[in-house]
Structure formats: C-alpha cells, structure tokens
C-alpha cells in the first residue's frame, strides 16, 4: 500500500481555494482526502464541495427520550403512588401536557448538543494538523495524498495561489 503524506496549503482567497480543490480532484484525490480548515465558515457551495445532508436523528431520539421520562414522571409515578382526590382520574392529560412538552424540548436540545459532540469527536486533546493562521484571514487546505504524487500536489497548490505549502505536523492545539 502506497505511503500517505499530509500536505497543507494556506490561501488568502476562497476562489483560489476552490480552484485548488478542483485541480486536486483532477490529480485523483477524493473528496474525503481533502479538508478545509477555516476561521470564517465559507459554505460548501462557495468551495465547490458536496454538501453534507443528514437528518437530525439524534435530536429526534433525544426528544423521544425526554417524552418518555416525562411520561414516567407524570403518569408512571402517579400510578405507583396514587393520590385520590374527589373522584378525579389519577393521571390527567391537560395538566400532564406541560411536563411532556418541557421534557421533550429538553431532550431535543440535549440530543442536538450530544450529536455535535459525537459527530465532531469532541472533546479532543490529541495532537492535530492545524495552523493558527486561519485566525488571520487564511484558509487552510489539508490533503492526504500518496507519496508518489506529493510533488504534483505541492505544484498544484502553489500554481493555484497558495501563500505557503508545507507538510504539517500533528501538534497539540
């Protein structure tokens, strides 16, 4: 299996970055071999990259879990510890709706937050490929490529206007 190498190019323009991505595709790099690190969120459309589409399953699951907890509190516990008042039903719907709603929303919000944490692999303290210059109006194009095409990749990045091209090292953030 050919050895892989990481190469990082720093750009000042989003247009030049998109051109470089296109040229790297022509060289044979796949979308998953390339990544953009940016301090300003340029959209996938601006960069000419495929947009990620995902249904927020975990948010929905969180909401369902919250609803289940609410159901347990409002009905489950009342059935376990019934307080009989004037012939009224022990578990009542109108007064339970409030807690169902609140805990469902809490579950939804927690589920959404946990999805972000899980999908992004947070918290991460491992050394990573990174360049703090992204906070100085730079866009970093990070690519994994075969050692055989290393020179071509570097040439393409420079030709497309990269201000600096180098082999990054994983470092603590």
């Amino acid at each position: 299996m050919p050895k892989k190498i990481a190469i990082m190019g720093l750009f000042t323009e989003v247009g030049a970055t998109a051109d470089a991505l296109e040229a790297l595709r022509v060289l044979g790099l796949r979308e998953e071999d390339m990544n953009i690190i940016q301090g300003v969120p340029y959209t996938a459309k601006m960069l000419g990259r495929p947009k990620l589409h995902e249904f927020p399953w975990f948010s929905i699951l969180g909401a369902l879990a919250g609803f289940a907890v609410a159901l347990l509190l409002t009905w489950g516990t009342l059935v376990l510890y019934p307080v009989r008042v004037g012939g009224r039903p022990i578990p009542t719907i109108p007064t339970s709706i409030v807690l169902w709603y609140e805990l469902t929303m809490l579950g939804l919000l927690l589920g959404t937050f946990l999805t972000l944490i899980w999908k992004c692999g947070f918290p991460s303290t491992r050394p990573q490929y990174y360049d703090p210059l992204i906070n100085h109006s730079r866009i970093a194009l990070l690519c994994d490529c075969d050692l055989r095409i290393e020179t071509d990749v570097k040439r393409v990045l420079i030709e497309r206007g990269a201000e600096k091209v180098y082999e990054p090292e994983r470092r603590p953030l």
Partner: protein
Amino acid sequence: MLAELPRKFGWPHEDNPQERLLLDPLPQEEMNRIMLRPMFRAGPGWWLVVALLASVVLVCFVGAWAYMIRWGMGIAGIRRPVFWGIFIATMVFWIGISHSGTFVSAILRVFNAEYRRPITRAAELMTSFSLICAGMFPFIHLGRVWTAYYIIPMPNQRQIWTNFQSPLAWDLFAITTYLIGSTLYVYLPMIPDLAMARDHTSGWRHTLYKWLSLGWRGLEYEWHYLHKAIMIFAFAIIPVMFSVHTIVSWDFAMSMHVGWHSSIFGPYFVVGAIFSGVSAVITVLLVVRRTMRLEYFLRPEHFDALAKLVLIFSFSWTYFFFNDYLVEWYGGDWVGHQLLLFQARGPIAPLWYAMLLFNIVIPWLTLWNKRIRRSPIALFLITIGINVGMYLERVIIIPGFLQRNSLPFNWGDYNPQWPEVSIALGTMALFILLYTVASKVIPLIPVWEVLEGQLSHTRRRIGRTVVTSVAELE
C-alpha cells in the same frame, strides 16, 4: 431644470456605509485583536468594581440570607394574606430579563435580522446569568432551605410525592429546561471564538480555552454540524422561552385570586418579559461598549434597531395591560373594583403611576425619535427606567394584588423588611458581578458571525442610488 430637481431634494441618496458594521470590514486579525484586547487587560478600576460587587453580594445576599436562615422567615415581611412578596417578584423579574438573550438571538436569527450578529452573545449571556439569579429565589422563599430535597420525586417514608399537576412543579421543570437550553445555546456559537482565543493565549488562559473549545479546528464538517445545531436550538428555544414565562404567569393565573385569575396573563407576562429583557440588553450593551471599547462592533445602528423593538414591545405591553385593566373595570365585580382603586389611590399608587410613567409615557414620548434612539445617555436612562417600571409591575401584581382578596376581613398590608430588599439588591449585584467576570473570560462579540455577515453584504447601484444588498450564503 428637471435635471436639477433630484439634487435639490438631496438625491442621489446614499447612506454612509461606514455607519454599518457589516459594510465596514476589517481584517480578521484586527477584529480578533479588538475583541481580545479588553479581555486580557484588567486595570485597577476593574478589580475595584469586582471587589465592590463581591462585597455587596457577600453582605447583602449571602449575609442577609444566612441571617434569615438563622432567625427564620418571620423576619421577612410576608404575612397573611400576602404570602408571596419581594422574593417571588424578584424571581419573576429575573426570568423576564432572561428572555432578552433568546429573543434577540434566536428570533432574530430565525428571521435573518442581520443587525443581530454582534449583539447575540452579550444578550445570550444575560439569559444564563439572570436564570441563575431567578433560580435561587424559590430556595430563598422556601425558608427552611435544607428541606429543599422534599421536591425531588423519590420514594420516602414521609409518603410525600411531587405533585406534577401543580404549576409550581411545572415552573421548576420549565426554568431548568430553559437554563440548560439557553446555556448550551450560548455555548455552541462560542466554540469557534474560544478556539480563536486559545490560539492567541498562553499559560492558564490557553489551558482554559483549550478545554472550553473542545478541540475545535474549523474543519468543514465541524462548521456544518455547528450551523445545524445552532439552527435547531434557535427554533426549539423560542417555544421554550414562551412556555417559561407563560408557566410563571400560571403560578398566579391558575389560582382563583382576584386580579390573577385571567386567561390573558400568559401573553401579558411574555410580552412584559421581552419588553424588560430587550431593554436590559440595551443597558448592558451600552456599558459593554463603553467599558470594553467595542465601538467598532456595537454601533448606533444596533441601538437604533433594538430601541425600535423596545418601542414596539411598549405598545404591546400597554395593549395587554389595558386589556387586563378594562375587563376588570367593566366586569363590575366589587372586589375587582376595590383592587383597581387600591392601585390608583391606595398605598401602592405611587408605584402604579411610576410604572405607567416608565413603561408607557417615557418610551412613547422619546423612542419615536431617531436621535434619541441613537443617543447612548438617553437610551441608558430610558432602558433603566423601563426595567424599574417592569420591576414595579411585578411588585404590584404579586404582593400588591395579594393585599386585596375576595374575603374583606382577610385584607392586609405588606411591608417589605430589610432582608428581603437586601437579598433582592444582592442578586442585582450578583448578576453584574457574573457579567463583569465573564467579560474577561468570554469573547462577548461573536467575531466569526460578524465576519460571516460581512461576507454576505455588498453594495450595488440601482438607478440613481447605491443600496445595500444581502446575499443568502446557504
């Protein structure tokens, strides 16, 4: 002759792009510097303010509460029939202030109001801090606070079980949901700014930001999931916000007490909360702008827009107030009439007239004027006045209304005692203290959101004029 006409009438009209933050870009590193510089400098003045606030919190809040725990609730002015006093009024006030962040951030985000960008974080922080202040009052009001665990649903020998059908239990869950949701909502958009701060710091600050930024690098998928999460939060937190103050209003409206038992109380409380919350945002932003020298980010356009919102909410609050008042007046119920007379001519009349002055007369007479909306001193005074007025409203509705009820032999007066006033003042100091300390740790301006907004704003010529054009980035 005709060609001269446009010039004569001040055409071609072009607004000054320098006045608008999103049309006045600076390099990213310069913006970061403007935001970080005041965070990393704490002069003697700042330490003095913190020491002063901490002392007030210690003496007025912790000290008075400890004194009350030592001697019991009897030292408070709460007597039959006024069983809810300053404590509950202050709790409702803080929950009202907490609506600032969600309204300014979530609703304006959902509606793509671009002027929100530099002001969201400062507003969201207010939500979390004011909810912390609000959340303490049920425990303070409890008196014997060590028995607070009775409200936790768990099998026990006392055969006591939490009544989940009670508005007070709903309140606990609503405030908890809102506190957790709004704290996460302030944290999420902060992650890229915390990473930016991490890259500009060393020592303990670097370690702190490293942990808080969770290892954020700014990869495409990180931005994607962050945007998605922020949008879900923005949509979900809005109904939660409405529910919180509605449920707070139900603490009163679900009872059969005259003046409280009203179906309009939910929206009346929500509108009042947003009214006081947005006013408080203006007050805080004016202080932040001045003390942290953030004039580049916080411009007259932002205060102008927020002041218009305040005026609209003043109209809305007046509408609900009048609705509530007129129905009671027209209804002809004798006790209801006595309650209205009690407000207009009784011992709480000065509070009632002050409320009308601060919440209606002053905003209506001033905020229609663009120069006033852009004047920091005028806005500061008007918004402080509104919050004084809104605090008085809560005092009138809660201990005020409780003094008159359906059993005239059971009428009574309420005289707040020093521990109550002291604890209420102590939470004011606590809120300011939390905010002052946070301003040195948390980037109060979401720099990446401002940069994103500047990307989408351009100027284009249409006919004789040049107008601002906003692009949909997604």
